[in-house]
């Protein structure tokens, strides 16, 4: 259950994508054990936000804290080592490498802890039996849903304290979306803190504790998930009524 | 070159670059040179440059020529004929040299002929091709033996050994190509049949394919025209393939480096070369011996093993300086005439006797036929 200490605190974060400013002073918090959803239309800056959090994209202003430690200017691999694991948009699995290799690379920072890695690998294979079945195949041959599972599994092998999920439902059939969201929910139930970015607002807010609405690089709304679901503003952003 | 000299030179060249002609220093003789100090032919240009610098210093230390100091101005062409033309122009126009001794490769020498002819400046080439002085050009001379002479010398030796079928392999560079041409042209005169005609690139690392073909001909000897690493690899490959017929190399390998590179495989290889390589083995009565020994001693004291190429630079420099001495002036026409009158000049390459119809002045006898035995040159009697 969520506690009161913020695991992640984002303060006035700005970011530029080339000459284009993508984030305009975004502030948010994720508490230990929470599942927080960030919803918003295409191009609202959701992916840029996650990229900035994991250090792939440089912040041009503001600060990011994990616990009380500032991680704003850290190199991505340091951020991962600190326990922030990111499941990128569009899966981005290492297509030519095998499923097993993909998962093991997820534990790259923990490669010295062989026992833990093997054990966690077993856990992942139990969680996603299909991956076990296809463990020797190259990741590129998997279907979209399987790749999504792989990407999540890969991130879990990084022993996340905070899991960043970017559009896990993108391009997936409804049944699969349901399954992925069930998995996300159960991960959260097991105590993994999750920051979820989704276009599929209903599904996301359906499982989240709280949500933020991002529009053109700014947080325009933040409230409990249920409230947001009922809020007209959210619906308008998506369906344009 | 030390740092201070470099800095001065740089400063001077930058300052002077956009001003008109430099003031003429009346009391110096300016010898210009453009050499392939870097690039594929650097083993020619490098030793040539060292020789020129060494002897210009010596002449100056002895008080110069007629009281005038000698100044050497040289540029590195890297073997590029385009650069050679520009450097020749730079020597003539900007540096206003009195005579040019240079042109390591035939290509660079040929390239500047137009320029020296139209500007009227004596030019002594250090390159091999016979085409440089044939037909005779008014201002152009050369000192190294020609590739035609080398081919002739080799064929003479082959005939003595009763060889009439020869497999030719040559490098792709100017030297190899030109030597190949002369060999093919000269062979009928000596009644020699060329039964194979192969080639290799300057940077090739293996010639067994070509030599395998040669092995399966009825050749009685292999002749290789080339320089650089090629001939050493050919020599090694010949042995590797178990080819037992005699191997002839050209004067392009006339340096200790060849023996060092080819190692044991070089045993028994014959080549025509200037007497310089066997200076110590010459009869004491040989008029060339003192000159050769003096050059060898001086060069080896400073830079290591001699090659005949450096010797050509020595010959060229002294032929030019002596002509200026005789002319008592640096007037270009007079110097040219005096160079043409060079007689009995005992150089490292042989005894030069130039004339209006011969701007080289060496005969076949200037070449010695050498054989490599026990890792050293020996004279073939």
């Amino acid at each position, binding site marked *: 259950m969520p506690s009161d200490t913020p695991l992640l605190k984002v303060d006035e974060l700005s970011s530029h994508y080339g000459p284009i400013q993508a984030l305009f002073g975004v502030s948010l918090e994720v508490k230990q054990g929470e599942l927080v959803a960030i919803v918003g239309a295409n191009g609202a800056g959701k992916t840029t936000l996650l990229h900035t959090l994991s250090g792939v994209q440089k912040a041009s202003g503001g600060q990011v804290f994990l616990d009380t430690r500032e991680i704003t200017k850290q190199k991505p691999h340091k951020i991962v080592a600190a326990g922030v694991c990111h499941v990128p948009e569009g899966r981005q699995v290492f297509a030519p490498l095998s499923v097993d290799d993909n998962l093991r690379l997820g534990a790259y920072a923990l490669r010295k802890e062989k026992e833990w890695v093997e054990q966690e690998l077993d856990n992942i294979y139990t969680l996603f039996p299909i991956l076990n079945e296809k463990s020797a195949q190259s990741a590129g041959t998997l279907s979209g849903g399987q790749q999504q599972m792989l990407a999540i599994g890969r991130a879990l092998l990084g022993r996340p304290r905070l899991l960043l999920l970017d559009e896990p439902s993108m391009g997936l059939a409804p049944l699969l979306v349901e399954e992925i969201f069930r998995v996300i929910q159960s991960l959260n139930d097991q105590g993994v803190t999750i920051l979820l970015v989704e276009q599929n607002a209903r599904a996301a807010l359906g499982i989240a504790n709280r949500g933020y609405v991002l529009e053109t690089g700014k947080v325009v709304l933040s409230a409990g998930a249920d409230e947001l679901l009922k809020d007209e503003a959210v619906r308008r952003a998506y369906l344009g009524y | 070159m030390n740092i201070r000299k470099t800095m001065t030179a740089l400063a001077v060249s930058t300052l002077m670059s956009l001003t008109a002609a430099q003031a003429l220093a009346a009391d110096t003789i300016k010898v210009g040179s453009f050499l392939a100090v870097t690039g594929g032919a650097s083993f020619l240009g490098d030793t040539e440059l060292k020789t020129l610098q060494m002897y210009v210093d010596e002449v100056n230390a002895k008080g110069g020529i007629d009281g005038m100091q000698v100044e050497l101005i040289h540029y*590195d062409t890297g073997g590029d004929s385009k650069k050679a033309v520009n450097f020749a122009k730079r020597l003539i126009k900007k540096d206003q040299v009195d005579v040019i001794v240079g042109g390591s490769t035939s290509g660079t020498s040929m390239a500047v002929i137009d320029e020296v002819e139209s500007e009227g400046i004596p030019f002594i080439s250090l390159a091999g091709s016979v085409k440089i002085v044939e037909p005779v050009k008014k201002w152009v001379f050369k000192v190294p033996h020609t590739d035609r002479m080398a081919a002739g010398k080799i064929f003479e030796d082959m005939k003595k050994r009763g060889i009439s079928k020869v497999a030719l392999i040559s490098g792709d560079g100017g030297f190899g190509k030109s030597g190949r041409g002369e060999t093919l042209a000269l062979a009928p005169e000596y009644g020699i049949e060329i039964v194979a005609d192969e080639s290799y690139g300057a940077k090739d690392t293996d010639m067994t394919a070509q030599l395998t073909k040669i092995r399966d001909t009825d050749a009685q000897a292999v002749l290789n025209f080339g320089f650089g690493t090629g001939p050493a690899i050919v020599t090694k490959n010949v042995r590797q393939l178990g080819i037992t017929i005699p191997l002839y190399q050209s004067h392009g390998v006339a340096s200790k480096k060849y023996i060092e590179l080819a190692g044991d495989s070089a045993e028994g290889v014959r080549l025509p070369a200037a007497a310089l390589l066997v200076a110590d083995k010459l009869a004491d009565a040989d008029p060339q011996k003192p000159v050769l020994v003096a050059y060898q001693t001086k060069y080896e004291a400073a830079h290591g093993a001699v090659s005949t190429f450096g010797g050509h630079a020595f010959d060229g420099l002294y032929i030019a300086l002596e002509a200026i001495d005789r002319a008592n002036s640096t007037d270009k026409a007079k110097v040219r005439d005096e160079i043409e009158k060079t007689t009995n000049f005992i150089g490292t390459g042989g005894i030069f006797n130039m004339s209006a119809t011969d701007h080289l002045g060496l005969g076949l006898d200037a070449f010695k036929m050498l054989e490599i035995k026990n890792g050293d040159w020996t004279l073939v009697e």
Partner: protein
Amino acid sequence: MRRLAGFYILAAGVALLPVFFPDNYFITVVGVTAGIHVILAVSLNLLMGYAGQISLGHAAFFGIGAYTSAILSARYGWNPWLAMLTGLLLTGVIAYFIARPILRLKGHYLAMATLGFGIIINIVLVQNGQLTGGPDGLGDIPSLTIFGWEVDSDLHWYGVIGVAMLAVIWLSLNIIDSRSGRALRALHGSEVAAEMMGINTTTTKTGVFVLAALIASFAGSLFSHQQGFVSPGSFSFFFSIELVTMVVLGGMASTYGAVFGAIVLTFLPELLVVFEDYEVMIFGAILMLTMIFLPQGIFVGLRNLAYKLRKKNATPDSIAGKEQNRGTA
């Protein structure tokens, strides 16, 4: 007249220099070489800088022009102008036939293919000794005669090459600022978008490839008659790379950048001569450092810097270079 302002300044400089330094080695000798390099760099820049098609074999076309001129005029006594024309024709035909298959390639594959083509041509020049004189080269190439006036001194050649160079620069500036030039730049910017604007990218690429080859061939003929001597070494792949370096060092996609790069790289070795054995190392270091710190090239990089200083917030780093003074004609 703003469109060609830079050109007029350049032309005035070219015209005035020999007036003040009529017999200066760096003007009339190196200047001539620089002029030929400028022509080559400007033509390569059309292909590489503007159309974005890298070529490591440009020296081959330079060589085809030079050798056609040399062989026809020196060996067969043709009029040099006729020889030059034949060279252009031959180059055009060869370029046209290899353009299509070669330009289907992209990036490093294109670089390799053009490089290979250049090397093949060079091998042909070396191996066909009877015709080309082999590696030692071919001499006695007659000079050009213009209406009975023989171009026979360095100063004369300076004039001829100067005019030719300015003409090529002028043509290049005109082309870039025209429908065809925009098509070239468009296909560099985005090939799909160019296609969607109705530009047939295949024929456009072929066109610029042939044009660049023709200009190089023209430069080759001039070079051949000016030097009176040609050898394959002058057209090797090293020279192709030198040409690419000129374009890149000056700044891609800028005619003036190519001019600048060609001039710098012609004079630099002349000045580095004094460093003797250090020359190679210094040259390599200059090349590396320039590209690391001014990846857009010296000319374009400095110009953009100047823009930035002039108006603080304008012109961030451009993806390709920018040609200034693109006003109305």
